[in-house]
């Protein structure tokens, strides 16, 4: 059945500015000497002698902009109007889980007793934060099937490295120094980078024809020099690793540890748990599954949860009670790998995520995942006539299609499809990832888009395919309605201009 796409709140959003498509001046170009926005309070503190620091005093003030507050507000408001966002429309960016970010969480972040607290305040004066951390740790552990967790890692990639350093410390505690960590060829690019930075060597296990880890090949790769494996499940193709228990048995058979990359947790909350699958270390991307806003590329939060026998290695300190929950304090595990953040992690992001979990509750979080998977499967089926689906089995929360046939027939590539979709008022899917699929378009609708929005998105993609067959040049010239059109990225890389001053030179 087709849903009406005339009322698609997540689609048809105009990404073009309200008026015009001229360049916006930089804040420095808007600057005029002696113009000002600032106002500073009168402190009644007397002016003190600068003598003690005379040797270090700068000659000229830092060349910061000098703008009126009115011009400042206009500038950043115009910049905001030149940016697509989840609040504006659907954002089917595969692997990124760009779901709606509820507004009440903004109010949580603004609570005085949370946002205006110094991180070095003694434990007696931060009982609320310690309780909140302890509660979030309980939620994260119950959802992932783990025992204890650190909330410090400020992003998923930081969580990966933290988990791998725990893996390293575990082996060292047993007097072993295995060097290899197994990673599937479909893994996120951060996985092999994290493996290198943790002092291991990444060993790639290929995917079979069904898009899943090739168990026979894995058995050949794994030996006493294997420290562990990093897996995303469902994997980056949106497929559940059906032989997960067998895979992890192979790893555990050589005393290796299994790391779960939680990037795709949105598919299975309340349905299945990494701990039950046999994983030992799990990071969760709270900014994906638990709806904290992505902020244009951060802040995120990537807590790392572990099974009980690894808890001793967690970064410290952790919020713990020594009196059965009457009061809380900071405790550092005995064999901790040490801090991974200057303070306690992205605390306010952590508070937002816990608020989201509490709003949905146990059953609501399961429904969230079920509808994310429903949306992905429905859209995948809806697009089956337009694009070859990369793998036949049902998908989880995202799926990958290939524009290889379209490219062969019309010359229109996955990239062109993505750019053309921008003109229809949608954000583009992820393209050219995972690397194992040619001309990949990786689509993750999330649970917060309505069937009407999915219909509108599918129609837009169908129209692009139809246009490609009729007038490929028109597709390749898109987008046309956006604030700027396709960019000369080679020019940017050949002669990098990274600041205003590099342009002026």
């Amino acid at each position: 059945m087709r849903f009406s796409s005339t009322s698609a709140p997540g689609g048809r959003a105009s990404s073009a500015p309200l008026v015009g498509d001229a360049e916006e001046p930089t804040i420095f170009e808007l600057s005029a000497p002696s113009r000002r926005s600032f106002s500073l309070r009168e402190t009644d503190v007397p002016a003190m002698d600068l003598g003690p620091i005379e040797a270090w005093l700068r000659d000229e003030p830092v060349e910061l902009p000098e703008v009126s507050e009115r011009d400042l507000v206009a500038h950043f408001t115009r910049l905001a109007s030149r940016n697509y966002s989840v609040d504006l429309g659907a954002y089917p960016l595969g692997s990124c889980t760009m779901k709606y970010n509820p507004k009440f969480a903004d109010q949580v972040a603004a609570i005085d007793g949370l946002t205006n607290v110094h991180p070095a305040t003694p434990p007696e004066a931060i009982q609320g934060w310690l309780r909140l951390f302890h509660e979030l740790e309980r939620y994260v552990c119950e959802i992932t099937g783990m025992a204890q967790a650190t909330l410090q890692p400020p992003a998923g990639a930081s969580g990966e490295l933290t988990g791998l350093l725990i893996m390293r410390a575990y082996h060292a505690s047993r007097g072993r120094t295995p060097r290899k960590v197994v990673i599937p060829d479909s893994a996120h690019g951060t996985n092999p980078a994290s493996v290198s930075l943790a002092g291991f060597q990444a060993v790639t296990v290929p995917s079979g024809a069904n898009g899943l880890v090739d168990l026979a090949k894995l058995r050949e790769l794994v030996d006493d020099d294997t420290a562990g494996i990093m897996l995303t499940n469902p994997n980056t193709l949106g497929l559940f690793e059906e032989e997960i228990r067998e895979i992890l048995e192979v790893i555990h058979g050589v005393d290796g540890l299994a790391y779960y990359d939680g990037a795709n947790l949105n598919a299975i909350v309340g349905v299945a748990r990494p701990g039950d699958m046999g994983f030992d270390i799990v990071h969760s991307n709270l900014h994906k599954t638990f709806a904290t806003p992505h902020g244009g590329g951060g802040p995120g939060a990537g807590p790392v949860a572990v099974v009980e026998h690894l808890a001793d290695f967690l970064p410290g300190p952790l919020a713990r009670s020594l009196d059965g929950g009457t009061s809380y304090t900071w405790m550092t595990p005995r064999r901790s790998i040490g801090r991974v953040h200057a303070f306690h992690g992205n605390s306010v992001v952590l508070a937002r995520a816990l608020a989201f979990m509490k709003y949905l509750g146990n059953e609501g979080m399961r429904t969230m995942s079920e509808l994310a998977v429903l949306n992905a499967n429905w859209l995948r089926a809806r697009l089956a006539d337009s694009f070859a689906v990369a793998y036949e089995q049902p998908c989880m929360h995202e799926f990958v299609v290939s524009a290889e046939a379209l490219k062969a027939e019309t010359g229109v590539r996955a990239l062109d499809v993505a750019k053309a979709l921008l003109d229809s008022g949608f954000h583009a899917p992820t393209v050219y990832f995972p690397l194992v699929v040619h001309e990949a378009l990786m689509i993750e609708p999330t649970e917060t888009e309505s069937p009407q929005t999915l219909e509108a998105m599918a129609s837009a993609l169908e129209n692009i395919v139809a246009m490609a067959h009729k007038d490929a040049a028109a597709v390749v010239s898109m987008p046309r309605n956006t604030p700027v059109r396709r960019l000369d990225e080679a020019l940017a890389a050949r002669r990098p201009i990274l600041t205003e001053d590099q342009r002026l030179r």
Partner: protein
Amino acid sequence: MPSFAPHTDEEIQQMLADLGMSSLQELYSSIPAALLRTEPLALPPDQSEIEVLEEFAAYGAQNAAVRSSLVNFAGGGAYDHDLSAAVRHLGSQSAFVTAYTPYQPEVAQGVLQALFEFQTIIARLFGLPIANASLYDGAASLVEAVNMAVGFTKERRILVSAGVHPSYREALGTFGAGTHLLLETIDLCDDDSTCFPSADEETEVPRAGAVIVGYPNYFGAIEDLAAARAMADRRGALLIVVADPVALGLLRSPGEFGADIVVGEGQSLGIPLSFGGPYLGLFAAKSEYVRLMPGRLVGETLDQEGRRAFVTTLRTREQDIRREKATSNVCTNQTLMAIQAAIHMSWLGKRGFQMLARRNYDGAHYLAQQLAGIGLAASTTHFFREFTVHTPISATELQHRMLAHGFLAGLVPPGHDDRLVVVVTEARRRVEIDGFVDAMAKELR
């Protein structure tokens, strides 16, 4: 069921029917039955948004917030500044808050241009030609700087001043376990600044990857960066400076002293205290290191109609392309905080930032003068806004007692329970400083 999914029951049934399914459970047919949960998660049921808000307000009520509960004299990379209404308003625009990494520059010019402006501000502040679009926090920036220095020099011996923030040093040790760093400490002199050896004392020294100093350091001392530069040069090492950005409103930039890489915590540039995060890792370097820089870089280019436009550039450095050869695994950064810093610094402007720095200096030196009057002389000789005093009783005990007077009395450096590191920002009025000194006098009488 509470959820932010818009589906009606009828729509769910219709979508399932389109897929030839009769229940949502069927969607999970590829998961082995033994792994499927039959019980709900052992977590409470849903709550309305007002109930959640009230619960979180209750958490907040159990914390002592600065200003409403405590007058704050603690810093250490987290400072209590006055924030502009403009940054609160503009920094919370949903187009910035709910966007993601600018993978499609045609619809991300707002974030990209704001980051280009941020990079320019940080480069000018640190006195270096290039800056990245931010990292997680000050500690992460330092770790990435060291990885970059090791990548460039191929030397794993790293000399770290004992004046560098203790948490940053700890993080360096944590991550250094994976990258096999050989961390050596350079001790401090009695005035809390680093004791740099003279050239005569160092005729034959082993090569090193980096020398790291604070500017000012954790204890407040403004370091002799020329001496640090010389020490690095004798070892073929890069000079990495961990700078307090606000100090640079008055002090010469580390770039002027020849620093190769300057990192720092950008929380001071318009970010609330936030119990330690999200903060803003600052990172600037000399141009020759551009292809080794961690994190995202935004560059200027042209679109196909010849209009100026901005784009993430030099991405071949990044882990999504180089994978296991990458020297950094950083994917996201702290874009929203970087945009907020660009807004706040533009609001302060050239003169406002200079005036603000001067008020931090005046406040701290006034406090030092007053504390000296009650017998607590600063051990730090050359300082900007933060300095150290030696306490006659346990500093932890003193900090505890001062809470009862409504003051957060500074930081107790790990391993030094006889010291307090105190700070004054432009937010502290003379009457608050005088009240603090009176309360300290009472407790130490």
